[in-house]
């Protein structure tokens, strides 16, 4: 298992017992029950949206789209029920309609409640991870839009960027995200994410983003077909997010290298020169700042925290 021994040792006896119970259900009795877990950062907002009979689809779309773990989970759900679909990207609107709002809502709620109760050990800075993921997604969408990517494909660019680092969460949450009994502790987060996504049924095009988002030379990994424009757009967005101060530092031993300057191969793949690239980056940075603030306000809204506390205490 990936769980660090340190995390187990410092946990309270209650948490250790709970972790043991969860492991028992998720791994030893495979198929009996999955306990989904989300990010603590967005848990309050997710609960406030989903713990009501009045949840509306646009709100559900927002909370799912603004959280890398929930996005990954909802994508996984779709492919769990439709494993024989054509394996191309499926929009969240389609997923919410096909699975029914109530099913998506309840799974999001379950994941949020698990993380709200803080009963699992997630060995990572969750807020930093959330900020980096969202920042990358915003840059990815703005960059793609600026480069003339069709509106109907923009959500795919957003989602790919949002979940590109899911391997970090998969490692930190030791397989609790979805019931996959595998050890990713020795892999780098990129490889771990791709393998995890593959095991969860996500399309190869998204697995390839996770696997290759630090590669400037594509590996021979079997996550074909790779959508090159999507990949290089994500790499550029990842770079911009780090540059804007939203990095997600990996733990010691992870071989991730921060790119100091966008290499020509990325610029050329995106049909940009250093000059045109810089012009676009300056332009989208202004919109980025505005959008990031809005999203932060939405997710970390103080009135939501009060509402969620009320909901959870009433139980």
């Amino acid at each position, binding site marked *: 298992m990936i769980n660090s021994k340190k995390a187990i040792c410092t946990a309270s006896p209650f948490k250790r017992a709970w972790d043991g119970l969860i492991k028992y259900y998720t791994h030893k009795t495979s*198929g*009996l*029950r*999955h*306990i*989904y877990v989300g990010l603590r950062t967005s848990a309050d907002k997710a609960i406030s949206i989903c713990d009501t009979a009045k949840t*509306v*689809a*646009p*709100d559900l*779309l*927002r909370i799912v*789209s*603004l959280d890398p773990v929930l996005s990954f989970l909802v994508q996984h*759900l779709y492919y*769990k*029920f*439709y*494993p*024989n679909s054509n394996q191309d990207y499926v*929009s969240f*609107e*389609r997923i*919410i*309609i*096909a*699975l*029914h*709002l*109530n*099913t998506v809502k*309840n*799974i999001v709620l*379950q994941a949020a409640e698990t993380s709200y109760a803080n009963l699992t050990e997630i060995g990572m800075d969750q807020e930093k991870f959330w900020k980096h993921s969202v920042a990358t997604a*915003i840059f990815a*969408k703005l960059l793609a839009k600026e480069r003339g990517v069709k*509106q*109907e494909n*923009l*959500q795919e660019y957003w989602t790919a960027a949002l979940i590109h680092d899911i391997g970090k969460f998969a490692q930190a949450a030791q397989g609790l995200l979805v*019931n996959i009994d595998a050890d990713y502790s020795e892999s780098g987060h990129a490889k771990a994410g791709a393998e995890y996504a593959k095991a969860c049924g996500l399309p190869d095009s998204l697995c390839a983003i996770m696997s290759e988002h630090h590669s400037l030379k594509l590996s021979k990994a079997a996550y074909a077909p790779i959508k090159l424009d999507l990949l290089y757009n994500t790499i550029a967005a990842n770079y911009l997010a780090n540059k804007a101060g939203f990095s997600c530092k990996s733990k010691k031993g992870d071989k991730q290298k921060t790119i100091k300057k966008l290499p020509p191969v990325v610029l050329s793949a995106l049909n940009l020169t250093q000059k045109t690239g810089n012009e676009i980056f300056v332009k989208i940075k202004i919109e980025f700042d505005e*959008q990031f603030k*809005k*999203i932060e*306000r*939405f997710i970390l*809204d103080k009135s939501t925290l009060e509402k969620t506390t009320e909901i959870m205490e009433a139980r």
Partner: protein
Amino acid sequence: MFSLRFWGVRGSVPSPGFDTNIFGGNTTSLEIRTDDKIVFVDCGTGIKEASKNLIKNDFNDGLPELNVFISHSHWDHILGFPMFTPLFIPGAKIHFRGPNFPNGESLRSVFSYMTSYKYWPIRLSELPANMTFEQINEQTIDLGNGLKVTSKYLNHPVRCLGYRFEYKNKVIVTAFDTEPFWNPFALFKEHSQEAGDSEYCNLICDDYAFEAGEKATEAENKKMFDFIKDADILIYDSSYTEDEYENSKLNWGHTSYETAINSALTANVKKLILFHHDPLRTDKKLSEIEKRYCSSCKNKQSMEIALAREGLILEL
């Protein structure tokens, strides 16, 4: 032989009483028979009467193999399970199939839960029948000797499967509980204006969400059309009138009589059975509905329409 018998036709909750004697108050359970197969769809309370008939007629010379397809796990579709008599017969082979659950819970665990110590005196593991439980998605299962079953996810607040039975070029389709797929993102603009731009960031849920919702709705309804197309008998959810549906039942996962009839007509269905009656619908009201919808259609179209009632037997 390819026959269909209705043992329970009511939705939501059993509704026994003087007002429901004619159409029946038991919840959903159907029996489909071919020359050598016995299949049930759902274990609502209707399956109790089905059990009596089964034991009386089919268990005299050996143990017939039974296939039970569960549409979904809402109470009205599983409530009769603990009283399904073949479960108590040692060696009786019963194959249960039903939809997957989002959190990976098994079909077996659903029945195990409802027969646990505090809810029922005999636990699932104590039952002597030889039971198997299988979760399925959208797929085709060959039950042998010419009987094939294709499953399809419907539009209901829990994962719910419809079944298309094909035997000797004849088709029986069950499509309950379901409602037509619709676009919940149509509300986007209205909500956006109410909540203000700062909270409802337009980068996430933009104008395109509505368009994407429209495309998804169309695609899902097309799949539904293909599923019921050319059925000889279609047993379709029709819990409400169109007024009831539009005024207060949108997104409840059920269909109106009018929509059921129009969908069946478009899909070239030969006989439509209106099914899953609302528990508050009395015999008197159902008779009025039967008169209104069945006779009006009879005059205009070749498709036959009938309301499901307990004991109704149809043969193809």
